[in-house]
């Protein structure tokens, strides 16, 4: 492994590039709903995104990273030639990053997850042979791409229906909103904490028993619910706004709740999408350092930190602009709707992350928004655009694959 340092440097660089791209562009999807509904200012959203993307990446990003790193390629086929895996992973990373850059410049809806998975499958099938691809695992991943928007949609449908039933259709919606808001906070925080504790935290050296996990999760939920209750109770009735739109104050109660789901969403995004950037990095590093294609070593935590750092860097440089443009256009998503959609999406993504499934944040959120739409929550959803987003589901995979095959041969020509 004479080029070991070069490989390490390239992996770090490409990983950072990819993470930066995700931070600059993709995070906007997760945060924009909160800004559009007026729950957060842009500055606050950037802060929330930075903190929770980072902690999501570090605390709950391990499982998906492992899947990307060694779940898709059966590395027993490359034990003899570890360089092949290095070239391939570097090529996949570069392909996904470049594709992401091209697509977002052109304004095409792409999924970072789909492009990285497509890229890895692409180089694996062409460079190593189709038998090197763990097709069973790939099929599971693809199935999760169908399941995640569907699940989020169903959850969003029921969450929004519950808000309608408990609050909006009643004679005294404001009092009811104040009463039930802390309950929604409690459920959200408890569930997300619970999934994170069950699935993610072993690699940071924290092992809790089942009972302890429940205790911690319920504790977290209760504390945040109390904080939420304090904020909700402080909201004054705006008589003038209520005269024009009777639910103005009710929506402001939910704006408080949306801060919490925005944090959950950033956490969920960090836990899943950061793996797209650092999964291949982890693969390259483990092979380059040992010269062996070993299977078992855990993902080093500093790589997760690198991914988190890249996302925050992207947020800092371009994220502000993207979040602002997107936020301006999502005024249709009022806090009651945004809360339902974000809660459903965050829950689904964190759950998928826990089981190691790389799902698309955007698609899951779109599924959740459709769920709210099905519950008659949104005045108009443009199904044509929804269709185009889901078509990107299919187009992105061959694009990522083709680019990664190209880069693979270039890299092998340069170093091999």
């Amino acid at each position: 492994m004479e080029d070991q340092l070069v490989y390490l440097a390239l992996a770090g660089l490409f990983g950072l590039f990819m993470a930066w791209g995700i931070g600059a562009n993709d995070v906007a999807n997760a945060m924009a709903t909160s800004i559009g509904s007026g729950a957060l200012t842009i500055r606050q959203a950037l802060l929330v995104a930075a903190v929770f993307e980072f902690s999501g990446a570090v605390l709950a990003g391990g499982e998906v990273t492992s899947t990307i790193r060694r779940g898709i390629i059966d590395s027993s086929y490359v034990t003899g030639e570890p360089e092949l895996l290095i070239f391939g992973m570097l090529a996949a990373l570069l392909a996904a990053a470049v594709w992401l850059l091209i697509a977002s410049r052109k304004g095409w809806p792409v999924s970072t997850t789909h492009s990285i998975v497509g890229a890895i499958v692409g180089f694996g099938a062409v460079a190593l042979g189709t038998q090197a691809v763990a097709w069973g695992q790939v099929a599971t991943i693809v199935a999760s791409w169908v399941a995640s928007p569907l699940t989020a949609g169903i959850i969003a449908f029921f969450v929004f229906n519950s808000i309608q039933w408990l609050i909006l259709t009643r004679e005294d919606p404001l009092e009811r909103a104040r009463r039930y808001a802390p309950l929604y906070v409690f459920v959200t925080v408890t569930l997300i904490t619970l999934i994170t504790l069950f699935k993610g935290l072993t690699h940071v050296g924290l092992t809790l028993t089942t009972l302890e996990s429940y205790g911690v999760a319920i504790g977290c939920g209760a504390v945040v619910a109390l904080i939420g209750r304090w904020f909700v109770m402080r909201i004054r009735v705006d008589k003038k706004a209520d005269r024009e739109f009777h639910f103005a104050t009710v929506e402001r109660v939910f704006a408080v709740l949306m801060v919490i789901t925005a944090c959950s969403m950033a956490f969920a995004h960090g836990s899943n999408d950061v793996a797209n950037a650092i999964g291949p990095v982890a693969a390259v590093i483990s092979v380059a350092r040992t010269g062996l294609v070993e299977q078992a070593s855990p993902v080093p935590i500093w790589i997760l930190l690198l991914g988190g750092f890249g996302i925050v860097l992207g947020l800092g440089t371009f994220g502000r602009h993207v979040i602002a443009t997107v936020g301006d256009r999502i005024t249709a998503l009022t806090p009651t709707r945004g809360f339902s959609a974000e809660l459903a999406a965050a829950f689904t993504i964190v759950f998928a992350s826990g089981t190691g499934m790389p799902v698309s944040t955007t698609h899951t959120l779109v599924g959740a928004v459709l769920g709210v739409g099905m519950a008659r929550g949104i005045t108009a959803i443009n199904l044509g655009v929804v269709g185009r987003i889901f078509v990107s589901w299919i187009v992105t995979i061959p694009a990522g694959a083709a680019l990664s095959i190209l880069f693979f041969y270039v890299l092998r020509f340069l170093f091999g």
Partner: protein
Amino acid sequence: MGSYISKIFGASPVGPIQDHMDTCYRCAKELVTFFEHVVSGDWDQVQASRDKIVELEQAADDFKRQIRAQLPKSLLMPVPREDLMELLLVQDRIANRARDVSGLVVGRRMELPAPIQKDFLSFVSRNVDAAKKARKSIRELDELYETGFRGAEAELVESLVHEMDQIEDDTDVMQAEIRTKLFAIENDLPPVDVMFLYRIIELTGDIADMAERIGRRLEVLLSH
């Protein structure tokens, strides 16, 4: 760079529908001023009032076109697109009736016979009341969307629709009375004028009918 999440939201038709109704109401309301000037015989003022009605009717048409353009068939909406279009058409007819009535009066330089003047003016303003009630219920449209067309808000709109029905009943009674009075004096008036007077009474009465039909359309939205 950009995000696709924002593009999946179509423009909400609610605000423009409310603006359209508001314009139609103001158009109908101008009829009160219009007929006051007709009664006092100030034809410059009548013409000015007529111009205002035409202007408002055109503004309503512009809103109608804008709403149609932003509601393509590929939208997922809580209520069917057809029902919204139907509502819009009925609203629009309020402005159209105001335009037709004022057009007839100005075009034929019509005068109201003294015995029916007072009754006719209150008949006009009662019709405008119905339109005002219709505007009030359309102003609840954003709240209806918020609650998913259910619950306490839906009941509120139901009661507004009920009030609209009562006003429409009033106008029916008034219309019958004016006709009776006109019938009593019709032999003293030029026959062609009488024909058109009946026509104007009928067209004006349509305004309350349209308001009532707006109520029916809202009930259809509530029933989904």
